[in-house]
Each structure stands twice: as C-alpha cells, then as structure tokens.
C-alpha cells in the first residue's frame, strides 16, 4: 500500500540534506583533516616562542654540504615531476560550417523527391513516419547534388561538397584566430564515407599551401565518433611535438551516400544525415593559454568491435538490387547502452567526485557480497559536468542517454536543438552543440563539458573539456542568426 504523501515528502527532503552533507564531507575530507592538524601545529609554534624555535634549528647541526644536498634533491625531484607531466592541450577556437539557405531541405521537398525517385509506397510510408518522429526541423541542409531529381552523386560533386564545407569552416577559423597556414604543424581530417585519392587532407594542404613538413593524417571509415578520435590523435601528437598547432577537421560528405533502394534499414540514414563540418584548432604552446577557450582534460575511447553483434550493428553493404547503403540494425539502442556503460565505468573514476565514487563502490560491493537484488547505483554525472554534448544521432539516442544518465531537459537542450536545426551532421554535431551552449551565453570559466560520440564499430568515445575563459555573447557562428528563436518546442510527431 503506498505510503501517505506527506511523510514521503518530508523524508525525501531530509534525505536531500543528508546527501548534501555527505558530499561536502567526503569531497573535502582532506581539508577537514588538515585544518585541525595545522591549527595544532600553529598553537604549538606560538607556545614555543621564537627563541626556542631558533634553538631547535641550531640543534640539528646542519652544515653547508648537507643543506646543499637537500636543496639539490628538492630541485631534482621537482624538475622530474614537472617534466613528466603531460603537456596541456588547449582548444584555441573552432568554427562550424553554416550551410547556405539554397541547400535547405524542407520536409515537403524531401518527401516529394523520395516519391518521384523511388515510388515504392511502403518505403515512402516508412520514410514519412521516420521524418515525422525524427526531431529534425525545416532548415536542415543537404548538398546541392542531392537536390537533383534523381540525385547526381559524381566524384566531382563529392569533391565540390568537401571543398565547400571544409574550406568554409577553415576560412572562418582563420578569421577568428588569425592563424597563419604556415603555422599549422599537425593536420588531422576525419570523414567516414568519402575517401578520394589524393586524400582530403592533401586537398587542404594544396588549397592553403601548408608546409612541406606538415604531419597530416586522414581518417576514413571510422564512423560518427571519429571526431573525438581525431582529437585524441592530435593530443597524442602534441605530447611528442612541443610548441605546435594542430588543425582537426571533422566532417561527413553526404553526396555519394544517398541510398536509392528500398531496404528499410538503409533508408534511415537518408532521413537523418545532413551536411556539416567543423574545424578545430588545438595547441600546446604556452602563450595560447591566454586566449584559448578550453583545455582538454580526458579522452576515453571504448571499442566494442570484439562483440559480433556490436560489429555488425552499423554495416555498409549492398542490398539485393545492388544499391549500396548503410544498414542500421534493430539492436542499435541496446548496443549503444552497453557501450555507454563501459565508457561511464572508465570515465567515472577520472571525473566523479569522491563522494559519488564511494557510493558506487559500496553499492557494488554490497551487490556482490550482501544482496544481489540491490539496485545498481548510477553516479550523478551532473556533479562532475556543467554541460553535456551528446552526439545528435537521432531522437532515440538523446532520449536514451537522458534516461540513462538522469539528465534534465536543459542538459540535453543543446543536442536536441542541434538535431532540429542542423540534423545529424555525424562527427561534427558535437561542435555545433558546443557552439549552441556558447551562443546562449551559458559557458563560464571553470565549467566542464562532456562530449559523447557514438559510431560504427561499435565505438563510444568521450572527451572532457574545461572552459578556461568565460565566453561572452554574441558570438559568430552557425547559430548567430537563429539563436534567439531557440529553444523551440519539438513535438513528438510532426504531421506531414
């Protein structure tokens, strides 16, 4: 029989204060220990008096040699300590591609094209249902080649799209940061589905006349989580090369990937994937610390490819009629949940305050030793982070993560609004979401951001950034002309 409401309420309020008290106590445990200790020492010193202290010092009989050895030891130990610390990696600034209005794809146009190109009524109904519930808005964009009836996916059109999105993002970044192309030491490009020869990184080196001793890398085939992979690679390179700048480009080229068949599992990507790109400037130069926006704190990579189900869950293949497309399996959400759990388990000890870790540890021990029926404790990540950027893979992904991490609607607002305004832009979506948070003026100095990306493999990668200077609005970016309209209410189903 349910308990009476009033006692429940008062007991939950008491529980809240108990929890708060517990958190303060455990997280500042050392301070609590240290304070009485220092007080005791101070009292003792005061009691002894200056003359007695000097007498104590003289009685140690230290001569010059011993003092010099001790000083040398201290200097040696501190040098080893400072040299072995990892170089800090700063995110100086980043720029996202803003698609031109002529590339806009309203729902009506999308459905019309689908019906004109592939008139299978079942596929049409399926895509209509997907679009209605997708959480996308009327301003998402596809590249020009996809506006043709039928679409025109030539290699030239793919290169044109790559040039349009990548060069716009880089030009914006150069304008924002004053970066000189000759100053770029490391270049990492990730684009999963389009991999021409010469590579996209070679295309950038050619266009901007980068140095001949540049360290360039082109990552292809690594899915929607490749953005954080590139950041990880750039970070590792910046540990090895001092005083360097790294340019990271995350994008997905839509032109070659329009699926013209009627397999439902493959039609999903047509409905959700849209055009986008981001250019990020990372640096380990000490003077960049003054103007950089963020510092990279952690990157955690989880690869579930060893499990067959996870490996086949996002799979590119040809259907029975020979049309190639990306097939998404029905297990996708379950597999994403498992990958997320692994990621949380790894990142938890790195970011959570001690109070949450202890609770988690005790609940785990209790479940193992005392009673397996205890509910597993889900640590409260809201204590560890102020902002969350969840890959805008689709409405289901955001809903699932919101439930699993117990996040409020405000925390997932950036992800939902990015999905609405720009669609699923694959690896660059995390940067559009970060830009949303900055455009709303919510990013303050000291805030921590958690970026979570999912992708084929199945991979779940996350990055933790710490904001090192408050970002003042208005800022220039893809949200500049529409941020005042957001947040919008996104209905469950948009009737088409």
């Amino acid at each position: 029989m349910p308990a009476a409401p009033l006692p429940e309420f008062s007991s939950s309020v008491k529980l809240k204060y108990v929890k708060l008290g517990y958190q303060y106590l455990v997280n500042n445990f050392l301070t609590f220990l240290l304070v009485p200790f220092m007080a005791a020492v101070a009292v003792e010193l005061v009691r002894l008096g200056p003359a007695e202290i000097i007498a104590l010092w003289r009685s140690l009989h230290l001569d010059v040699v011993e003092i010099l050895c001790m000083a040398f030891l201290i200097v040696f130990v501190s040098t080893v300590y400072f040299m072995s610390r990892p170089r800090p990696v700063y995110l100086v600034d980043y720029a996202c591609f803003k698609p031109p209005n002529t590339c806009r794809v309203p729902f009506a146009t999308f459905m019309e094209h689908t019906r004109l190109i592939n008139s299978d009524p079942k596929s049409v109904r399926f895509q209509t249902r997907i679009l209605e519930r997708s959480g996308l808005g009327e301003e998402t964009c596809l590249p020009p080649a996809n506006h043709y009836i039928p679409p025109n996916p030539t290699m030239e059109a793919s290169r044109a799209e790559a040039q349009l999105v990548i060069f716009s993002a880089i030009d914006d970044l150069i304008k924002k940061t004053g970066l000189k192309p000759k100053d770029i030491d490391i270049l990492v490009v990730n684009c999963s589905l389009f991999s021409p020869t010469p590579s996209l990184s070679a295309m950038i080196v050619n266009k901007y006349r980068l140095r001949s001793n540049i360290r360039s890398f082109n990552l292809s085939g690594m899915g929607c989580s490749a953005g954080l992979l590139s950041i990880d690679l750039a970070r590792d390179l910046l540990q090895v090369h001092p005083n360097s700048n790294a340019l990271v480009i995350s994008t997905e080229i839509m032109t070659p990937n329009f699926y013209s068949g009627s397999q439902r599992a493959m039609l999903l990507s047509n409905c959700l994937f849209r055009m986008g790109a981001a250019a990020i400037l990372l640096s380990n130069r000490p003077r960049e610390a003054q103007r950089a926006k963020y510092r990279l704190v952690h990157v955690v990579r989880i690869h579930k490819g060893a499990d067959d189900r996870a490996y086949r869950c996002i799979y590119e293949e040809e259907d029975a009629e020979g049309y190639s497309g990306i097939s998404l399996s029905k297990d996708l959400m379950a597999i994403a949940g498992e990958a997320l759990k692994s990621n949380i388990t790894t990142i938890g000890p790195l970011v959570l305050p001690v109070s949450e870790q202890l609770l988690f540890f005790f609940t785990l021990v209790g479940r193992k030793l005392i009673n397996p029926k205890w509910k597993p404790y889900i640590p409260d990540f809201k204590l560890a982070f102020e902002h969350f950027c969840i890959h805008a893979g689709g409405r289901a992904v955001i809903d699932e993560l919101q439930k699993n991490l117990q996040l409020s609607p405000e925390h997932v607002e950036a992800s939902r609004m990015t999905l609405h305004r720009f669609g699923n832009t694959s690896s660059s979506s995390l940067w559009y979401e970060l830009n949303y948070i900055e455009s709303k003026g919510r990013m303050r100095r000291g805030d921590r951001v958690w970026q979570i990306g999912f992708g084929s493999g199945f991979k779940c990668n996350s990055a933790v950034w710490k904001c090192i200077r408050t970002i003042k609005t208005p800022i220039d970016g893809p949200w500049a002309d529409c941020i005042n309209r957001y947040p919008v209410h996104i209905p469950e189903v948009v009737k088409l």
Partner: protein
Amino acid sequence: MTAGGRRVTVFAKSTAVSATPVRPGKTYPLSSLDHLMGRHTLHLVFYYRPGPTLDRDGLKESLSEVLSHYPAVTGRLNRGEDGGWIVKCNDAGVRLLDARASVTLEEWLGSASAEEEMELAYWEPMGDDPSIWSPYYIQITEFEDKAFAIGLSCTHMHADPTCATLLVRAWADSHRRACIAYAPFLHPSSATFRFSDLAVKSLLADLQPEASPFSALAALFWSRIARAAGVPPGPGDLTLVVDIRKRMHAPLPHGFYGNALHFSRARADLAARVARVADELGRHVAGLQEEEIWAAAEWAHDRRQRGEEAFQMYGPELTCFALDHVMAYGAAFEEGEGGRPAHVSCRVGGAEGEGLVVVLPAAEEGAARTVMVTLPEEVAKAICRDDAILRYGPTVMFVGRG
C-alpha cells in the same frame, strides 16, 4: 542549325526552395476567376545579355531569396472539400531546370522558331498526384556567349502574366541588390541648389505650366544626372518617395508621427524632352493608388513579422524625394520675419547607389525650391557645372564630400 538536332538541352532538374521556411498551415483557396483559367498555362521567357553578375549560381541564390516572399508559389495544389483547388503553402519549392543552348543569343533571336522557344520554358502537365506536382517550372538556359534566358511556366490558375512578371522583376531586383550591395559607392559628394521663385516659374514656363515644381525639377535633375552618369538615353527608372498622409481614403493628419512614406518606381523615356519626363512623373505621382500604398505597408509588416532587418530603401537606383510640401520654414523661433529659417537641409543617411535627389521648400515663398543632390563624386561635379541646370540661375551651396 543542324538538321534534326536540338539546340537546347535540359541537363538537370532540381527543386529550388525558399531561403526561409514558410510558417506551416497557410492555405488559400483559388478564386472562381482562377478556376476559370484551369485549361490554360502561362509561359514567359526573359532574355538577358551577358553581364558580370549574371551566372547560374547567383541566379539560384537570388531566386531562393525571392521565394521567401512568395509562399504561394512554393506551395502545392490540393483538392478542397467542395472539389475546388486549394493552394497549400507547404514549402515544397518550385521545379528548376538547368539547360544549355548551343548557339549565341543573337543567333537564337535571329533564327529560333516558336516551337524552339517553347523549349526554353519547360513544362510538365499535372500528373495523377497534384500534391507532388509543382505548379511552377523555372528554366535557366545559358547560351554560348554567357547570355541567359529565364523561362517561367505556370498554370494560369495560379497566376496571370502581371503577377508572373512581378515575380521575375522581384527576382531581378533581389539579384541586383545582392550584387550592387557589394559595389563600392565611391566618394559620395553632395551639392545644394537653391532655385528662386522666378527661376522655378521660368522652368515651368519652358516645360509645361501645369506641371508641379516637384515634377519639373525632378525631371530636369533626373535627365541631367543620367546624362552625366553616362546612362544611355532610353527608358529609365526612378524611385520616387512621396508622403502619403493625405493620399489615403482615411487621411492621416499632417501631425501624424511616424513613417508615412511610399516608395514607388516611376518610368520615363530619358531620350525624350524633359517636358515629357516631367509629365510622366507628374502623372505617376498623381496616379498613386491607395491599394499600392497598402500593399507596400503589408509587405513591410510581413517582413517585420519575420524578424528581417531593415531594407535598403534609398538606393541602389537614383531616388527622388518629394519633400516640398513640408512646412519646414514655418518653424520660427522668434516672432516676425526674422524668425523663419534662412535655409533648411535634409540628408538621408545610408543611401547608396546611384544617388539621392531631395526637393525641399526654400526660404522664399511661392514656387521657390531647394534641391539637394547626393551623387558619386564625378557625377556631382558634372551636375554642378551643368548648363541646363545653371540656366535657371540657382545658388549653388554646400558642395563637397558628405
């Protein structure tokens, strides 16, 4: 012409959408007159000589801009409950065809047959499903010499030649503004010409005694400025700005505080005598209909509702402002004759392009007027020395930059 070979090839079909999304849910039923035209279709072709800003991508961009103002054009036809047609403004876009012609514009104009011309305006009749059929087809054909032909086909139920032409004119305006906005307005100079009562009366006597001082002066300056700017003689456009306080059926009081200006475009043949031009202008101003004024006000209101920024109202073409009814000289700070202003100037900030001509009252009563011009430096210099204007002995003041 090669025997049996077609000179026009349509190589791509796409859909052009508006730059801003349409607010969902707007529908409007077609009227009985519209339904009457159900059997007919409209085909317009506009030919343009090659120009520096004329290219396919630029045209598509300005088309998207213009379609934001015509939600009915990007909508689709559906059958209503009573069996009649309803336009559902669902933001689907218009069909756009890209084509190429293998001849130059001159060859085409000299030799194309009527059948061939129809190839420049692609058309597909309504199929089984009207909800995925675009009532408008726009074709952009590029000739060998980079000249362009814009073909517009639509069902006569949707539009008549006037509004179809208005759509293309709006498209052209949007394209021009997009290009001219980046053209540098080099060193604007201004000058003030004070015409005495006798001067204006003699001007009127030369042109047409019935003309108003405003239309006479506007016509005189327009023709001289066009000549100084090197514009070839022929039909020209002038943007006229008039006050509408007293032109409405329910007139606004003279004391109405706020913008009550109407911008309209007047045409006249600059190759003709100044008297003719003055006549045209006078007729234009007198003939301004209240409907036009309300339409412009609604357009402005819609723009504001959409949160769009202020428009470049003064410019880029030559703009002429009729302010001579303003009782500026009645602003007397002291009693008696000495209190009236000795001179009144008026400038408009942010005006760009070919220039601005403002006709103001002058200190002297009667037909005296002050004309202030802001023009590109060279043209302003030429006007200050122009004989046709200096004949009437105006006092030239405030010449220089700014």
